[in-house]
């Protein structure tokens, strides 16, 4: 298995404005690496640059230990799954799977054997003689996967492979792709705009915005310690609540634009200058007042309520911003109600008002199952 290394990689179409700038990252062998970002952030372009379908205009790309900037796609030892699957409509499923092997002049018996093995792994054995148009969306997806797997390339690139599937199938294919990747140990570079896919599939995630790296890290690390407000709102659903606030270090409080102060435990704000910051808190850390003794409580007017059965998500006005809170259970709240809401002040993130950099991490909320006493 091979690693992929990008050193100061950038891309520009008109030689003036970079659509991707200064990407530095090393993707380890056998890693599931997810590139995530809103549409137009350059994630697909980056993937296509790794594949060799787009020219790299600056920096160095290394695949294995070889500089690959100028290598043609076929010599980069990788396979790719496209968003629209790019199946050959005139070839049967079997011919689609073996297309790449035929190009490489692999003997017919071996081609057949490998196609059958791969088809079996993906449950396509019954469909080998069919044409792509006779398959359902999920089956086409599997053929595209099979085509990538059968090449036995050490690196696999996927460009939003699940975005054409319905929600249920997507959830199923997520775990299936992950399972296959683990089993074969391939290095996977996976592009998506869906933060759920990123969170659930990736060993590590890279968040891109306007062609620049926002943060690289494991999903939980990114969820807990977002590097800036963009990451904070992009990862997590509903997104993290943000509001501008003024720091009053001498009183150890934050003043919201409405004038409401939030008192934090002594010492949390030490080392911070007086001034404007961005306060962030995840919806699950805004709690029902009666369940949260000792936490600061404020009252707010509810603007919208969604009862999802196992949880209730509602939005309310916090000063000038609309925030959302997520409470467990089914709560009878109506829009227009003024209700008391407690805030877990230790879970607040603070971002620098100017640069957006994270200046105060929230408290660690990871939980462990207590070890059972062995008899």
């Amino acid at each position, binding site marked *: 298995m091979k690693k992929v290394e990008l050193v100061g990689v950038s891309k520009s179409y008109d030689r003036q404005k970079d659509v991707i700038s200064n990407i530095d990252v090393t993707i380890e062998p056998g890693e599931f690496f997810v590139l995530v970002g809103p549409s137009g952030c350059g994630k697909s372009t980056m993937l296509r640059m790794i*594949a*060799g*379908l787009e020219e790299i205009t600056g920096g160095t790309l290394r695949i294995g230990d070889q500089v690959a900037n100028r290598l*043609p*796609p*076929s*010599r*980069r030892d*990788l*396979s*790719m799954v*496209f968003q*629209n699957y*790019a199946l*050959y*409509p*005139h070839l049967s499923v079997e011919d689609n799977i073996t*297309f*790449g092997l035929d*190009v*490489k002049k692999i003997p017919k018996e071996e081609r057949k054997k490998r196609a059958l093995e791969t088809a079996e792994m993906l449950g396509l054995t019954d469909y080998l003689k069919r044409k792509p*148009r006779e398959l359902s969306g999920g089956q086409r997806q599997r053929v595209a996967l099979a*085509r990538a797997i059968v*090449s036995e390339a050490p690196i696999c690139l996927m460009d939003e492979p699940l975005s054409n599937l319905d929600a249920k199938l997507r959830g199923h294919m997520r775990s299936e792709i992950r399972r296959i990747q683990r089993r074969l140990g391939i290095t996977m570079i996976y592009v998506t705009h869906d933060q759920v896919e990123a969170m659930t599939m990736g060993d590590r995630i890279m968040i891109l915005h306007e062609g620049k790296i926002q943060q690289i890290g494991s999903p939980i690390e990114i969820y807990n310690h977002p590097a800036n407000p963009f990451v904070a709102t992009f990862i997590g659903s509903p997104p993290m609540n943000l509001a501008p606030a003024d720091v009053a270090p001498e009183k150890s409080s934050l003043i919201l634009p409405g004038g409401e102060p939030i008192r934090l435990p002594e010492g949390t704000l030490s080392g911070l200058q007086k001034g404007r910051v961005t306060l962030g808190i995840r919806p699950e850390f805004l709690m029902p007042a009666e369940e949260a003794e000792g936490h600061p409580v404020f009252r707010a007017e509810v603007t919208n309520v969604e009862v999802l059965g196992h949880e209730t998500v509602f939005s309310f006005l916090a000063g000038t911003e609309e925030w959302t809170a997520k409470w467990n259970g089914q709560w009878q709240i109506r829009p227009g109600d003024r209700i008391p809401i407690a805030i877990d002040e230790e879970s607040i993130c603070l971002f620098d008002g100017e640069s957006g950099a994270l200046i105060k991490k929230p408290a660690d909320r990871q939980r462990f199952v207590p070890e059972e006493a062995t008899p």
Partner: protein
Amino acid sequence: MSTVHGRTSDGLFASEHKPGVWERSRRARTAILYLLPSIILFSVFIFYPMFRTIYLSFFLTNQAGEAAVFVGLDNYKYLLESSAFLNSAKATLLFVLYTVPAGILISLFLALLANEKLRGIGFFRTIYSSTMGVSVAASSVVWLFMFHPSIGMFNRFLAIFDFPQIQWLLDPQWALISVAISTIWMNTGFSFLILLGGLQNIDEHLYESARIDGAGYFYRLRRITIPMLSPTLFFIITISLINAFQTFGQIDILTKGGPAQSTNLIVYSIYREAFVNYQFGTASAQAVFLFLCILVATILQFRLGERRVHYQ
């Protein structure tokens, strides 16, 4: 559908009243009303002339083109025994063989070139498709000058390299080839445009996927482009074939069927028979014969070609 109401005096039994023919044919009448404009146009310009032609082919006609003596299949018998007609059928067949494959290969080649993503490719696309905008008459006159034995471009060109001069349109050996060359040129624009459209419809990702697999240009051409283009190719082959069988304008301007009947293609021969010799009966028989030829060729093509065509 409307139901019958208010016609019967007794409203209670209205629903049991069976709708009359007038009511039941309401949808059909509406449909015919919509179809009427094209039915009239087709009848006047296509159906009537067609049936009239078949009718006339069983008669000898007078000077005014009216049926005079019924002769049954004699017109056809005469045609099949006439060396002039057989010669013209042979010339037509040769002409089809010269123009259709060459014309399509050239258009395909140009379309493949013009499908590359290069700066200023739009200019070449315009140029390659421009012959579509030139009328047969205008381009034939231009070719007439180019084929001219003494002042024509081709012979001047041959003279530069000291090749023997060719009497392009005057030599029975060359006349059909010369007309074929100009016809290929005239048809290129249309075929090019259709094929280019077909090429642009092929999903770019297929090529990208093949490139990652390591497929070279000709491998991609053979395994992706040609099969994906097959519906378009099939269409353009059918159209070109029919067009080649029906060639008239360039013959009339370039050679008038000569020299020594070598370029007397069937449609031109029909024209001469009808409007020069006033033999409307035999001319009609030739027309019916041509119609059957094209019909058979197209049916054969559908039978043989359809199997190799991959529709999406």
